[in-house]
């Protein structure tokens, strides 16, 4: 019983999609409402199993997922079981294990682990609510809910902010450092670059793929090379190596962007100039709120749009002049649909 | 050394051995293979801890726990198997046994000095792997002498040397003893060496001292008798202990009619070609004036001698390290004859053995059996062509110590004992039992691991396997090395029988006496090629020795 057993090459049939504007609303059409949320299995306690493919202490993407849910769970006296660094090949089994721990919800932190959803129809996972931080071709089925954000929106805006910074410091080059050379990482770069070019049309983006999110030694060298080549804004789109790259950038006075979280007021000793928040934790928090209220529906995808929803957003930590206003305008244009980001990224403007 | 005992499991290598050596003498230590000579010396060097006994140096008891202590006490040894590291240079090898800082300049000077003093010139900066065997031994000796030892032990130093090199060595030893008052212990089981080179001799047998003699007051026969423990037929003694003179001047001390092989049960051995030849050399020569066809005296062989069965033509081969092993070796072998290939170790005999074991491919030249060319080096090709081999080192390539005796008996011929790819246990055992009986192999059962058999019985297993495959050619490389007298006799007998039954036998040996005892024709190998050939009857040891040393006199 797998949800994706029909021809996998066929594009997903569009699931019921909620075009919500308010993250806190609990009233929505479509989907099914599991009985008894949040304690769906009725054992008197609420247990949430969180699955993450990456290190949940990466100070970035994966950590935000856990941090938000931890906060929420602590507030409500729920129990959180975190399983991180899961090999995608072991995702289903891990999900089954969680079901056997009698969790009320299985929350999947990233779409790499989407195969885990196939356990949702299995008897031992009966009644469990499922949540996945979506994207990357997760096909909607009635068994789970997903949150969707759109790389192009947040990364285009991130690029735009970076462009503003570039314009200010007179630079013509931006740097982007990430780990493995993945389709996803390339898409990020493309949107980021388009955003920069919207402000500084003749700017260049230097893309580095070190091969490993955590190999800070190599990421540092990539940063050194970029900085020496006159890169004036740098985007460490990394896991464990993020901070060490930013530290190097700090030393050269080159502004850096965050991969997913708001670290404008960060006290950890590294300074970010732009927070790009597309944090899966924020989307998850929305879902948890609904879950607590008993209104989280399965079978629907909740979309998160820049400019429409509180997250994602892009924030300049130390805005100068009219930078903030410009960024705000862009955000609004994207939110209102005035600017079609997908076309902008594809160069169809 | 007083009351030294050492057991290896059930084997008593040394039992209550006393040995005393005085300064200024060359002391021979004589004994058969496995008599315990090396073990005794290893005790002296601290390489083997004795079960009991004491070592006294200048009357004082000493505990020698390792070679470094031994060196500090003035004892040094040239090992039977070299202890050099090939990829290190000469000076590094010489520094290896020392302690303390490595002083290259000092060692190099010392090497030169020692070399000059004793006439042992070696280049201290040469890599040992590039040196010849003789040079390597020089390095070993320099390595010992540079520490100015009081006692120098040499374990069978001449087995790898040419006659001339041996003589040079003994000259050096004389100088060491005479000029510097050192003591030298010379281990050997070659009687003539002992007679020529030593002042005193201690004879060991089966781990015990059986005699002490002043060399000048004894002779080879007496020594041989003591060493072997019984009165031997001359020929057996000669094979076993290497008295060449006896083989060259036959009939003086031994009644010509005496049986050659004491254990020979079959009367046919009396007609054996080599015996015939040696005991009546004139007759042999007379019967075969051409000299080209050997052993015409043996009637059983004559018909078989007509056709050449095995032929090697202009064979060239190199080692994996690109060192030439064979350089244009040409050889012919007829059915029913025994051809002995004499030569000093390191001159290509092992290569010939390897060639017939399919272990060595040729760079040029051919090997033919019955006119058919065989792909040298291809696994099992030689075996398939009907060439049986008793390899030089049976542990390395003759048998598999961790397989059972039965399995060792069928290694190459699985066909007869298997059906559709599956082995049949019952057939395997049946076959093994038959061979064990036929070849009188002493083993508790066919399932006994080969490892547990004695050396002689291991060799019998190899022989049984090779002969049971009904080969047309049998190559025997050092077939009696490391065997006791009984086994040697058995082996000799079997080889003769094999030749008589029409098998062409090629004997490879570094022991001239073995060659002289067994062969009907003798070829000399030097630096990978045959430098001369002669009929057994025409043998002149001087000439043979010179040929082995490379002179084509």
């Amino acid at each position, binding site marked *: 019983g*797998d949800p994706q*057993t029909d021809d*996998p*090459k066929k*594009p*997903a049939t569009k699931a019921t999609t909620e075009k919500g504007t308010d993250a806190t609303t609990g009233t929505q059409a479509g989907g099914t409402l599991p009985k008894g949320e949040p304690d769906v299995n009725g054992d008197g306690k609420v247990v949430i*199993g969180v699955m993450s493919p990456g290190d949940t202490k990466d100070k970035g993407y994966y950590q935000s997922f856990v941090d938000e849910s931890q906060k929420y769970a602590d507030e409500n006296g729920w129990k*959180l*079981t*975190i*399983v991180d*660094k899961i*090999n*995608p*090949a*072991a995702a289903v*089994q*891990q999900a089954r*294990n969680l079901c*056997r*721990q009698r969790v009320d919800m299985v929350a999947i932190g990233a779409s790499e682990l989407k*195969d885990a959803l196939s356990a949702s129809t299995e008897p*031992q996972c009966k009644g469990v609510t499922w949540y996945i931080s979506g994207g*990357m*071709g997760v*096909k909607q089925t009635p068994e789970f809910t997903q949150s969707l954000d759109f790389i192009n929106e947040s990364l285009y805006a991130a690029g735009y902010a970076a462009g503003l910074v570039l314009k200010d410091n007179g630079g013509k080059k931006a740097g982007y450092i990430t780990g*493995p050379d*993945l*389709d996803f990482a*390339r898409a990020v770069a493309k949107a980021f670059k388009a955003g920069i070019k919207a402000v500084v049309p003749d700017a260049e983006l230097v893309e580095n793929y070190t091969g490993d999110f955590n190999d800070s030694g190599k990421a540092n060298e990539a940063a050194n090379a970029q900085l020496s080549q006159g890169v004036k804004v740098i985007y460490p789109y990394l896991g464990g190596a993020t901070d060490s790259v930013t530290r190097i950038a700090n030393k050269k006075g080159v502004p850096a962007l965050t991969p997913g979280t708001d670290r404008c007021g960060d006290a950890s000793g590294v300074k970010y100039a732009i927070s790009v928040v597309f944090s899966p934790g924020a989307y998850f928090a929305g879902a948890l709120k609904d879950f607590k209220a008993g209104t989280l529906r399965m079978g629907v995808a909740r979309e998160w749009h820049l400019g429409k929803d509180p997250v994602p957003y892009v924030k300049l930590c130390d805005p100068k002049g009219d930078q903030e206003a410009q960024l705000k305008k862009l955000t609004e244009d994207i939110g209102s649909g005035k600017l079609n980001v997908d076309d902008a990224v594809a160069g169809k403007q | 050394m007083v009351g030294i005992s*050492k*057991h*290896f*499991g059930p*084997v008593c290598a040394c039992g209550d051995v006393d040995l005393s050596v005085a300064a200024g003498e060359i002391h021979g230590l004589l004994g058969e293979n496995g008599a315990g000579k090396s073990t005794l010396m290893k005790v002296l060097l601290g390489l083997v801890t*004795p079960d009991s006994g004491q070592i006294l140096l200048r009357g004082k008891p000493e505990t020698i726990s390792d070679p470094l202590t031994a060196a500090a006490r003035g004892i040094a040894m040239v090992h039977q198997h070299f202890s050099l590291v090939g990829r290190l240079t000469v000076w590094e090898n010489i520094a290896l046994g020392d302690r303390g800082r490595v002083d290259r300049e000092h060692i190099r000077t010392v090497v030169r000095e020692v070399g000059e003093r004793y006439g042992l010139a070696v280049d201290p900066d040469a890599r040992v792997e590039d040196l010849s065997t003789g040079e390597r031994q020089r390095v070993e000796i320099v390595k010992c002498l540079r520490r100015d030892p009081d006692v120098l032990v040499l374990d069978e130093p001449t087995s790898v040397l040419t006659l001339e090199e041996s003589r040079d060595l003994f000259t050096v030893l004389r100088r060491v003893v005479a000029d510097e008052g050192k003591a030298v212990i010379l281990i050997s089981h070659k009687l003539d060496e002992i007679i020529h080179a030593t002042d005193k001799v201690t004879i060991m047998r089966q781990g015990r001292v059986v005699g002490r003699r002043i060399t000048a007051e004894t002779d080879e026969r007496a020594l041989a008798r003591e060493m072997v423990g019984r009165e031997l037929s001359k020929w057996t003694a000669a094979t076993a202990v290497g008295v060449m003179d006896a083989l060259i001047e036959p009939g003086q001390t031994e009644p010509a009619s005496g049986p050659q092989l004491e254990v020979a049960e079959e009367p046919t051995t009396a007609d054996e070609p080599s015996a015939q030849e040696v005991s009546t050399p004139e007759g042999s020569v007379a019967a075969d004036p051409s000299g080209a066809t050997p052993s015409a005296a043996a009637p059983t062989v004559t018909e078989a001698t007509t056709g050449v069965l095995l032929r090697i033509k202009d064979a060239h081969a190199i080692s994996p390290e690109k060192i030439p092993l064979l350089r244009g070796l040409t050889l012919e072998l007829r059915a029913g004859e025994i051809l002995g290939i004499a030569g000093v170790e390191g001159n290509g005999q092992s290569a010939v053995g390897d060639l017939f*074991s*399919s*272990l060595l491919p040729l760079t040029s030249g051919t090997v033919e059996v019955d006119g058919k060319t065989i792909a040298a080096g291809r*696994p*099992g*090709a*030689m075996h*398939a062509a009907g060439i049986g081999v008793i390899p030089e080192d049976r542990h*390395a*390539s*003759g048998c*598999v*110590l*961790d*397989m059972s005796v039965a399995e060792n008996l069928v*290694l*190459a011929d*699985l066909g007869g004992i298997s059906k559709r790819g*599956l*082995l049949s246990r019952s057939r395997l055992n049946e076959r093994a039992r038959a061979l064990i009986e036929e070849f009188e192999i002493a083993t508790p059962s066919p399932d006994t691991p080969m*490892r*547990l058999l004695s050396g002689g*019985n*291991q060799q019998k297993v190899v022989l049984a396997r090779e002969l049971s495959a009904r080969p047309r050619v049998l190559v025997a490389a050092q077939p009696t090395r490391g065997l006791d007298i009984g086994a040697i006799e058995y082996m000799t007998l079997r080889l003769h029988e094999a030749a008589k039954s029409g098998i062409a036998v090629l004997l490879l040996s570094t022991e001239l006496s073995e060659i002289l005892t067994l062969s009907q024709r003798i070829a000399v190998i030097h630096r990978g090629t045959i430098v001369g050939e002669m009929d057994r009857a025409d043998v002149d040891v001087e000439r043979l020795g010179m040929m082995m040393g490379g002179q084509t006199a």
Partner: protein
Amino acid sequence: MTKLLEAPHAARPAGPPGPAAPRTGAPITQRLRTPGLYALSLSLAFAIAGLLVAVVGKSPWDAAVAMYEGSLGSGSSIGQSIDQAAPLLMVAIGSVIAARAGIFNIGQEGQLIIGAAVGASVGLFMPGPGWFVLLMILLCAAIGGALWASIAAILYYWRGVDVVIATLLLIFVANQVVSFAVNRPYLLREQAVPGQTTASQSDMLRESVWLPRFGEYPGFNIGAGIFIAALLAVGVYFALTRSRWGFRIRLLGLNAKTAHRAGVGAVVVGGGALLASGAFAGLAGGAMLTGSGYRIQDGFADNVGFDGLLVALVAKDNPVRAIPVALFFGALRAGGGFLASTGIPRYIVAVVTALLVLAVVFPTAFAEIQRRRVARTTDA
């Protein structure tokens, strides 16, 4: 080449006949010593693991219970352990074949992932009835593994490049080869939903080519992989001990020169053994592909290659003995996954496994050392 553990014949003192040590009549204390050592070293391993769990503030007892729950505690756990054991056993069988031939293949991890990648291509692109395609997936996975191992074989027999080093380095190359393939849309990469990006993985195989599963789902249920693996283990055991091929492999492994004389070519028989071990690793990859993940991605091998090698080691190169050992390792892996789902960092499992392997090899090695020492002194 070296054998697993150390070559048993090399362990005995050399020199001609005579058993090295008196085996009979060993005092009872000595015979009890090895089991005692096992108990001691295993409990030490568990104690260290427990300590580590306590360090992170979790209860070692709960962890132990979770390990039990996840591996043996219920029908489905047992099934899970058995499923995990199947590819381990396949890898181990291959390792045994190579080791018996005197070859140490250490690159199963790479051969496995290459096998799986080949299998995935077949499964995704070959038309035909499910059972047939499944067979072809397994077959081609084995061939893929063998081909990958053949690189090391060629390097060894042609240029003398050490097998251990070559197979080791080829693991890293294999990982990149597969990474390349699953990142290229024209090769194995997943078909993208328009407007969305994809992970570095292949599409999922269609259900008709999955390995059949037996049993009732939430309870005890297992995939067909273990049956294939166990059958192969028994078959290889008989082939090694009873067939001419096995005899030749053994001969080659024990004495290559004698083998050569007897017509056993190192290239054919030894190279064949290396290829066979690659094939078994590849087959393990195919079984993992069709048995659980149904698609291939970066990190697919998940240490199964290395763990399988260790199974062979602990089973002392005996394919039948490898069955229980593989089940034990499978239980560890299954229990470990379950343990992780209780929130204890999953790395503890890797630590426990490693400690257990050391605990298992220690007593035999130690006994061997003792035996040798005793042999030296009693000889004396």
